[in-house]
């Protein structure tokens, strides 16, 4: 994992001290709220319904046990003993006091962490494949490039005041676990026939009020030219982005307005003008790559007798292994998905104790490596197959072994109206109601892959547009109502969902999802996922089933 050098550490110490001074001035009345708000947001501190919320950056979702233990300690000491992992792979603490925040930032800095660029119109936390360095599918380790982007984009003077926020994802596998096409820039690492590395550059994706799937502006960008090309894109955006209208200020609107080809040609012209000056020197790339050198793996048989024995003996473990254990690039190892979606729990929440359990397991069995996924779960990317039964037992005891990865109860939900100042309706309790309907694990497995994503407002932090079933909370004549969309996908086959019909009241949403699932089970052909059936049949049978009930 990449470790901060002395310059990084000094910078964080300075920023924390600066914010401490700003808090003192705010409390003394030397700064009013209007003056202070942009300063606190630059440090990831929001004011929400019940308290301040601190959004802590987890670059490309990677944390080590020391960091995770510190997050647990902070949540226990300064919050109510838990944290909420988000779709940007950050951690939000929802009960923070302004007066404590400078101390919290110091504690974060002590483990190379911060809350910078988790708010504001800048380049936000860069996300990457949570299986990076572990999956055989990948062409190269996307963390190397995500870290390079993190360094380049951190307090970048030219790109700290963009027209709007800006999100970048990096993946290196055909199977996209980053929702790359919903990003302002999605980067897909590829290898050319001559063996050289490059990126497919996709620009102008985004959710929110106007959902767009990113379009490819360059099929193959030589990897060494990444930063200058990003710079060219950001320059075109900085120049032409709609600063006059917050709802039209994202790059997706610019790309749509200019058209992909015109946008791409402006980027190419800008890129040609700026040359290679801002590209990463080979020595620096090598230095960063060194931080992600492959772990030391033992030579093990591909099949673990311990694991197979546990499978045969313990059906609950067999189910966990079926759903939460994924193939690793090295024989005898596996990738373990840690579910933060226990039935009835808040999606993405982890208690301080749960964070400590995961930190301990990563240390004992997982090569000190932990990842956060954009689907609000955790991953132990390098576990020996022989150790998986022991890891499962410890996770199970901590409520972290729900065998539901990619199944109906593995729901994305934003904090919604329970916490967020922007929300129109609750998201968490809708997720809880749906998960409880599908608490039977046999039923969940029978249904198969089904991605439900819930947002409490049109800002779409819960990615509802790209849910196989998307659920959007709206305010309809003063009541919580929910608009359902079907057929969205955030994966490599990205698509924006189709509206099902009129919005439903709160107490009908879980039943409607049940009806949608029943319809799918009735209509599906062999081997079809919910999404495949929907794509074949269209919305009609689903709409008919849900709204027939309404009459």
């Amino acid at each position, binding site marked *: 994992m990449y470790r901060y050098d002395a310059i990084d550490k000094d910078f964080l110490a300075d920023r924390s001290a600066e914010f401490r001074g700003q808090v003192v001035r705010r409390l003394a009345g030397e700064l009013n709220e209007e003056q202070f708000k942009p300063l606190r947001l630059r440090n990831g501190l929001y004011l929400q319904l019940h*308290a301040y919320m601190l959004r802590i950056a987890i670059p490309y979702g990677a944390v080590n046990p020391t960091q995770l233990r510190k997050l647990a300690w902070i949540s226990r000491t300064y919050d109510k003993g838990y944290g909420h992992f988000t779709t940007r792979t950050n951690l939000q603490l929802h009960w923070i*006091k*302004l007066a404590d925040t400078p101390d919290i930032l110091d504690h974060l800095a002590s483990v190379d962490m911060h809350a910078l660029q988790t708010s504001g119109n800048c380049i936000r936390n860069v996300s990457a494949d949570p299986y990076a360095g572990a999956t055989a599918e990948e062409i190269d380790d996307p963390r190397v490039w995500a870290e390079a982007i993190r360094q380049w984009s951190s307090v970048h003077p030219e790109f700290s005041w963009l027209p709007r926020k800006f999100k970048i994802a990096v993946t290196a596998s055909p199977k996209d676990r980053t929702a790359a096409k919903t990003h302002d820039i999605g980067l897909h690492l590829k290898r050319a026939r001559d063996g050289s590395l490059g990126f497919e550059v996709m620009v102008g994706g985004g959710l929110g009020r106007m959902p767009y799937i990113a379009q490819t502006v360059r099929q193959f960008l030589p990897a060494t030219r990444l930063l200058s090309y990003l710079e060219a894109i950001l320059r075109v955006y900085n120049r032409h982005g709609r600063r006059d209208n917050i709802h039209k200020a994202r790059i997706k609107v610019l790309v749509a307005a200019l058209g992909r080809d015109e946008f791409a040609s402006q980027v190419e012209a800008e890129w040609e003008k700026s040359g290679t000056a801002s590209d990463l020197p080979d020595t620096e790339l090598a230095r960063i790559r060194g931080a992600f050198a492959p772990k030391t793996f033992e030579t093990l048989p591909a099949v673990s007798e311990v694991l197979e024995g546990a499978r045969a003996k313990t059906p609950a473990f067999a189910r966990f292994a079926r759903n939460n254990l994924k193939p690793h690039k090295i024989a005898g190892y596996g990738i373990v998905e840690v579910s933060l979606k226990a039935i009835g729990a808040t999606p993405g929440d982890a208690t301080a104790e749960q964070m400590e359990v995961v930190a301990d397991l990563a240390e004992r069995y997982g090569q000190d490596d932990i990842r956060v996924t954009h689907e609000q779960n955790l991953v132990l990317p390098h576990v020996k197959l022989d150790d998986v039964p022991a890891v499962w037992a410890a996770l199970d005891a901590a409520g972290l072994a729900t065998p539901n990865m990619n199944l109906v109860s593995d729901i994305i939900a934003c904090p919604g109206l329970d916490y967020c100042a922007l929300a129109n309706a609750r998201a968490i*309790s809708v997720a809880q109601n749906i998960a409880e309907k599908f608490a039977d694990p046999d039923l969940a497995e029978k249904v198969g892959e089904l991605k439900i994503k819930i947002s409490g407002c049109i800002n779409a932090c819960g990615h509802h547009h790209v849910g196989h079933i998307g659920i959007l909370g709206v305010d309809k004549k003063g009541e*919580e109502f929910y608009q359902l969309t079907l057929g969205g996908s955030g994966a490599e086959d990205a698509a924006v969902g189709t509206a099902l019909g009129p919005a439903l009241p709160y107490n009908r949403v879980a039943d409607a999802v049940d009806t949608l699932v029943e319809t799918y089970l009735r209509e599906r052909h062999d081997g079809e996922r919910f999404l495949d059936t929907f794509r074949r049949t269209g919305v009609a049978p689903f709409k008919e089933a849900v709204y027939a009930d309404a009459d």
Partner: protein
Amino acid sequence: MRALTANRLIDGEVVFWRKGQWVERFGDAELFANDDEAGEAAEGHAKTLITVVVEPYLIDLIESEGLWAPVSYRERIRALGPSNLNHGKQVEGGAAIQALLHAHGAARSTGRVDLIKRK
């Protein structure tokens, strides 16, 4: 009826106005009749208290179980705590909390008097 609410600057806690001071319980909030200009006067004064609270505003109330509750669901959540976990102000329990829990007839989700008027 109406009440005056804000978030306390130093810790973000949801607070309500009561005769010259800020209290944490909705049940202790001072009530202003809809036509009582004292509500606007208190709001105007609260806006000058920039080292104490952030963004004070009036909220509309309705009757619930013989007590008062915010009209809007959002404001009831602020007065109670989040609905997913029992770890906000609702922990204290009692009649005022029950009245909030059982209130219905939600209005605009923002619940802010001035915003309702604007809509």
